[in-house]
C-alpha cells in the first residue's frame, strides 16, 4: 500500500504542475494565475493531506476520498486546456470534485456516511457530477455559448443550447441543493456531538461549512449567469483549500493530545494525591466525565476508587470502555466518551502512561473494597451478636469484659454499660475452680464445645446455662481474648428433672404396685413386664421381652377369646376389662382380671396396649368357699330339721300313739277285765314318762333354754354336768357375749363334748372360754385318742361353717395319740 501511496504522491505532484501549466497557458481562463495557484494548492493539499491520513488510518476512507478530491480537481481543471480532448475530459469531469467533496465531508471523520439522508445527498452529488454533467456536455457548444475561445467539445452530439442550458441549470440547482443539504447535515451533527467529538470534527466541519456556503454562492451565481461567478469561483476555491488545512489542524491537534499525554506522564511522575488520577486522565483525554474502574481479580469485577462496584457501559451507548493492561494483567478500565474510540492511540498512550499510577490506585481500591467487605462483615457480625438469643460475652486476657450483647443483659440482669471494662461478675463461687480450668484450656488454645454449668445473675440467683467458649486470636495468631456463648437451660433442666422424676415415679409405681402391669404391641409382643409379673410368672423381663405373651402365658383354650378381646381394645373399646388365666413357669394356673387401655403416640397412631392385672385366684377360691359354706349351712339346717322330725316321729310320737291305743283298750276293758285294764294303764303311765323325757331332750337339742335365759356360763355348766366325761370348765368372761357368738361357742363345746363322749375315750376334758384382743376364744382340749379331722366329720365341718359365718376361725389339732384340741376365735 505504501508503494501505491508513494506513486499517488508523485502523481499528485505531477498533476499539480500539469494543472499550473494548463491553466497558465489557457486561452479561455478568466483569471489564469489565481486559478493556477489555487488549483495547485487544492490538488497538492488534498492529495498530500489525503495520503497522510490514508497512511495513519489505512482502514478509513477519509484519506482516499481526499486523494480522490485532489485528482478529480486536476481532471476538472483540464477544461481550461486548449487541446480539445483535454478540454472535453475537463468538461466531463468539471463537477466530479463536488461528488467526492460531499462524500468526504459527510463521511468525516470515521469514513462512513452513516445516516440515510447523508447517503441520499452523497448519491445525488455523485449523480449530478457524472450523469448530470454528461447530459449537459452532450449538447454543449461552448464556442457559441459565452466561450468563443473554448476548444471544440469532442462529445458534442448536436448543438442544442436550450437542452444544454437546461442540463446546466439542473446541475447548478442540484449542486446548490446538495451544498445546502450537506450544510444542514453538518449543523445537525455539530449539535448532537459530544465535546470530544466536536473537538475532532470542528476544523474540518467549519471549513466544509464555509466551502458549502461558497459553493452555494457559486452555483447561485452560475444560475443567474452574472459576472460575479468568477469571484465566487475564486472564493470557493480558496475556501476549499481550507479543508485539507483543517484536516492538518486536526492532525496537529492529535499531536497536541500527545503533548497532553506527555504532560500527564510528567504530572503522574510528580506524584498524585489519591483520587486525583481521574482528573488528570480526564484532562488528558479531554473527557470531563471520564470514570475509572479498578480490576479486582478476586471478585473478577471493576470497582471505583471508593471500592464500589462499577457498571460497564453496554455496547452502542454514548459511553465506551477501554481496558488498561499492564504486563499482560488487567489493571483498570476507562469509561469514556464513545468518540474517544477514534483516538485509540491516545487512549492506549494515556492508559500506558497511567498504568503504574492505575496499578497503584487499583491496589488502593482493592484495599478499600476489602475494607468495605470487612466493614460489612463486621456489621453483619455485630447485627448477629445483637440479635442473638444466646448470651455472648467477650473478655480480654485479664478477664475484663470487652463485649456484652443484649441477650446477656437478659440472661444475667446486668446491662452492658455496667459490665464492659470491668471484671466478669457472673461466675459463682462454687464454679470458680471449673472456670479456672476452662480458662486454662482456652489459653492453651482449646475450644470448649459445650458444658452445662451454673452462672450468677445480678440479683444473686443462679442460672443454669449451656456454655461454649473459644479463644480469640489476632491476625498474628496471638491469643487476645476469650469469647463465651451461653444459653439459658434452666427451663429445659427443670423440665428434664420433672420428666425424670415423673418417670422414676411411674417406674417405681409400676414395679411396686401389687398388680400386674404389661405393655405389648399390636403383634402381642411384650414391651413391659413389671416386678409383680416376674414374681407371679417366674419369668424375668429379659426372658419375655419381645415375645408373644398369648403363646407364653394364656392357656391354649383361652387364647382365641383373649385375642378377640384385645382386638376390640385396638378397635377403640378402651379402657376395657377381661378375665383369663395365666399359666406360670411352674405350671400353676392363676386367674387374672385385666384392665386394658390403648396408649397412642403423638400422631394418633396406635402404639401399644397397657394392661393392668389383678391376680384374683384367691378371691375366686374364697368366693367359692363362701358359696360352699353357705350351701353346707343350709344343708346342716335341713339335716337338723330332718333329725328333729325323725326324732319326734320315732320317739315321742310313737309313744303317744301307743299311749292313745293303750288308753282306748284300757277304757274298753275297765269293767270287763279290771286287772287287765290296770296293767295296761300302768304300762301307759311309764310310756308317758318316757315320752316326756324324750320331748325334753329334744327341746334342749333345738336350743338350750338356759343359754338364752342365764347365759353361756350357766349353759356350759349344765352341759358339763350331763357329760359322761369329767369336764374342767374355765369361764373367763366379765359380761355376756352377743347372742350369735354365745350360741356358736355353746355348740362348739356341746359338739366337741359329744365327740369326746363318742370317739375320744378321754379321761378328762378342759373347756376354756375367754375374750382377748376383740376375739371370743373357745377351747376344748381332751386327753383322748386324737385323730379327728375337721374335713371329714360333718359335725366339725358344720361347726367351722357356723364359726366362719361370724368371720371367725375354727382350728382342730388332733394328732393320733395326742388328744384333740378344738379352738375357735370369733371377732366380737
Amino acid at each position, binding site marked *: 500500500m505504501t508503494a501505491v501511496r508513494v506513486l499517488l504522491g508523485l502523481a499528485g505532484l505531477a498533476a499539480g504542475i500539469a494543472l499550473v501549466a494548463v491553466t497558465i497557458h489557457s486561452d479561455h481562463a478568466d483569471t489564469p494565475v489565481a486559478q493556477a495557484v489555487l488549483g495547485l494548492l487544492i490538488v497538492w493539499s488534498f492529495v498530500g493531506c489525503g495520503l497522510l491520513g490514508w497512511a495513519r488510518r489505512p482502514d478509513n476512507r477519509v484519506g482516499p476520498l481526499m486523494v480522490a478530491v485532489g485528482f478529480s480537481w486536476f481532471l476538472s481543471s483540464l477544461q481550461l486546456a486548449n487541446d480539445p480532448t483535454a478540454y472535453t475530459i475537463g468538461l466531463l469531469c468539471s463537477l466530479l470534485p463536488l461528488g467526492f467533496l460531499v462524500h468526504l465531508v459527510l463521511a468525516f471523520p470515521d469514513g462512513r456516511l452513516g445516516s440515510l439522508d447523508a447517503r441520499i445527498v452523497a448519491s445525488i452529488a455523485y449523480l449530478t457530477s457524472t450523469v448530470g454533467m454528461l447530459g449537459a456536455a452532450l449538447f454543449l457548444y461552448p464556442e457559441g455559448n459565452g466561450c468563443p475561445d473554448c476548444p471544440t467539445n469532442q462529445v458534442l452530439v448536436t448543438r442544442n443550447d436550450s437542452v444544454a442550458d437546461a442540463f446546466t441549470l439542473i446541475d447548478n440547482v442540484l449542486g446548490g441543493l446538495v451544498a445546502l443539504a450537506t450544510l444542514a447535515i453538518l449543523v445537525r451533527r455539530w449539535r448532537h456531538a459530544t465535546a470530544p467529538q466536536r473537538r475532532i470534527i470542528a476544523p474540518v466541519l467549519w471549513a466544509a461549512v464555509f466551502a458549502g456556503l461558497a459553493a452555494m454562492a457559486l452555483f447561485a451565481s452560475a444560475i443567474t449567469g452574472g459576472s460575479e461567478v468568477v469571484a465566487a469561483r475564486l472564493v470557493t476555491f480558496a475556501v476549499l483549500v481550507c479543508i485539507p488545512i483543517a484536516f492538518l489542524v486536526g492532525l496537529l491537534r492529535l499531536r497536541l493530545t500527545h503533548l497532553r499525554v506527555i504532560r500527564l506522564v510528567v504530572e503522574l511522575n510528580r506524584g498524585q494525591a489519591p483520587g486525583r488520577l481521574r482528573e488528570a486522565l480526564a484532562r488528558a483525554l479531554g473527557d470531563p466525565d471520564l470514570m475509572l474502574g479498578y480490576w479486582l481479580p478476586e471478585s473478577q469485577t471493576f470497582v471505583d476508587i471508593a471500592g464500589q462496584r462499577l457498571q460497564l457501559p453496554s455496547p452502542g451507548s454514548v459511553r465506551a470502555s477501554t481496558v488498561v493492561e499492564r504486563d499482560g494483567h488487567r489493571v483498570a478500565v476507562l469509561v469514556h466518551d464513545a468518540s474517544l474510540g477514534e483516538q485509540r492511540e491516545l487512549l492506549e498512550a494515556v492508559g500506558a502512561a497511567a498504568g503504574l499510577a492505575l496499578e497503584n490506585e487499583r491496589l488502593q481500591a482493592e484495599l478499600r473494597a476489602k475494607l468495605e467487605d470487612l466493614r460489612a462483615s463486621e456489621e453483619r457480625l455485630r447485627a448477629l451478636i445483637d440479635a442473638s438469643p444466646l448470651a455472648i460475652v467477650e473478655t480480654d486476657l485479664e478477664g475484663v469484659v470487652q463485649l456484652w450483647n443484649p441477650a446477656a443483659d437478659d440472661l444475667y440482669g446486668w446491662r452492658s454499660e455496667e459490665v464492659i471494662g470491668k471484671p466478669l461478675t457472673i461466675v459463682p463461687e462454687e464454679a470458680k475452680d471449673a472456670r479456672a480450668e476452662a480458662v486454662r484450656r482456652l489459653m492453651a488454645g482449646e475450644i470448649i464445645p459445650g458444658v452445662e454449668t451454673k452462672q450468677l445473675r445480678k440479683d444473686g440467683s443462679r442460672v443454669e446455662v449451656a456454655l461454649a467458649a473459644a479463644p480469640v486470636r489476632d491476625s498474628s495468631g496471638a491469643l487476645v481474648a476469650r469469647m463465651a456463648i451461653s444459653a439459658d437451660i434452666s427451663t429445659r433442666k427443670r423440665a428434664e428433672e420433672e420428666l425424670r422424676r415423673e418417670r422414676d415415679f411411674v417406674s417405681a409405681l409400676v414395679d411396686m404396685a401389687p398388680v400386674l402391669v404389661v405393655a405389648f404391641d399390636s403383634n402381642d409382643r411384650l414391651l413391659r413386664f413389671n416386678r409383680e409379673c416376674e414374681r407371679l410368672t417366674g419369668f424375668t423381663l429379659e426372658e419375655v421381652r419381645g415375645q408373644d405373651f398369648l403363646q407364653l402365658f394364656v392357656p391354649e383354650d383361652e387364647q382365641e377369646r383373649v385375642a378377640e378381646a384385645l382386638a376390640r381394645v385396638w378397635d377403640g373399646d378402651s379402657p376395657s376389662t377381661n378375665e383369663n388365666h395365666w399359666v406360670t413357669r411352674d405350671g400353676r394356673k392363676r386367674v387374672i382380671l385385666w384392665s386394658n387401655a390403648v396408649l397412642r403416640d403423638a400422631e394418633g397412631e396406635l402404639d401399644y396396649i397397657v394392661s393392668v392385672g389383678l391376680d384374683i385366684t384367691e378371691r375366686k377360691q374364697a368366693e367359692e368357699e363362701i358359696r360352699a359354706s353357705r350351701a353346707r349351712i343350709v344343708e346342716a339346717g335341713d339335716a337338723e330339721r330332718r333329725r328333729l322330725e325323725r326324732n319326734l*316321729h320315732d320317739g315321742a*310320737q*310313737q*309313744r303317744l*300313739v*301307743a299311749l292313745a*291305743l293303750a288308753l*282306748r*283298750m284300757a277304757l274298753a276293758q275297765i269293767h270287763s277285765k279290771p286287772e287287765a285294764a290296770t296293767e*295296761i294303764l300302768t304300762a301307759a303311765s311309764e310310756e308317758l314318762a318316757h315320752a316326756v323325757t324324750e320331748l325334753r331332750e329334744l327341746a334342749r337339742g333345738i336350743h338350750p333354754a338356759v343359754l338364752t335365759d342365764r347365759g353361756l356360763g350357766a349353759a356350759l355348766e349344765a352341759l358339763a354336768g350331763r357329760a359322761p366325761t369329767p369336764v374342767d370348765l374355765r369361764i373367763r368372761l366379765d359380761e355376756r357375749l352377743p347372742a350369735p357368738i354365745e350360741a356358736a361357742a355353746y355348740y362348739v363345746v356341746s359338739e366337741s363334748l359329744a365327740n369326746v363322749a363318742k370317739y375320744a375315750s378321754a379321761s378328762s376334758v378342759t373347756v376354756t372360754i375367754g375374750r382377748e384382743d376383740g376375739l371370743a376364744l373357745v377351747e376344748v382340749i381332751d386327753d383322748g385318742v386324737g385323730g379327728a379331722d375337721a374335713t371329714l366329720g360333718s359335725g366339725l365341718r358344720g361347726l367351722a361353717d357356723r364359726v366362719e359365718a361370724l368371720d371367725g376361725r375354727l382350728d382342730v389339732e388332733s394328732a393320733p395319740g395326742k388328744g384333740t384340741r378344738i379352738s375357735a376365735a370369733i371377732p366380737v
Partner: protein
Amino acid sequence: VPTVLIVDDHPTFRATARALLESEGFEVVGEAADGATALEAALALDPDIVLLDVQLPDMDGFTIASKLTLNGVRPAVALTSSRDRADFGPLVGQCGARAFIPKAELSGAALSVLFPPPRP
C-alpha cells in the same frame, strides 16, 4: 274270723295293735318289721288284711301295697301312719291300698270296713 298281718318297724306299735285287734275279734296271723319280711309273710300267711305302716326301713308302704295288690283282690291293704293322710297326697289312692287309718285312730271298727271283702 278275719286274719291280719301287721307290718311296722316299731315293736311298741305292733304289740299295741295286736292287743287291740285281738281284743276286738281279729286274728293276727303275723307281724313284720320291714318290707321284705312283709312280702314273704303275706305270701306265706295269705292274710285277709295287711295293716301296713307307710315308713319302713327298707322300702315304703306304697311300694309294698302295690306289690301285694298287683295280681288279685287279696289281701286288703290298710295303710297306717302316725302322720296325716294329707301328708302323702295322691300316693295313698294310687298304690292299691283300700284304706288309710291314722295310727291313733286304729280300731276294729276301722278295719271292719274292709271285711268281709266284697264277694266277687
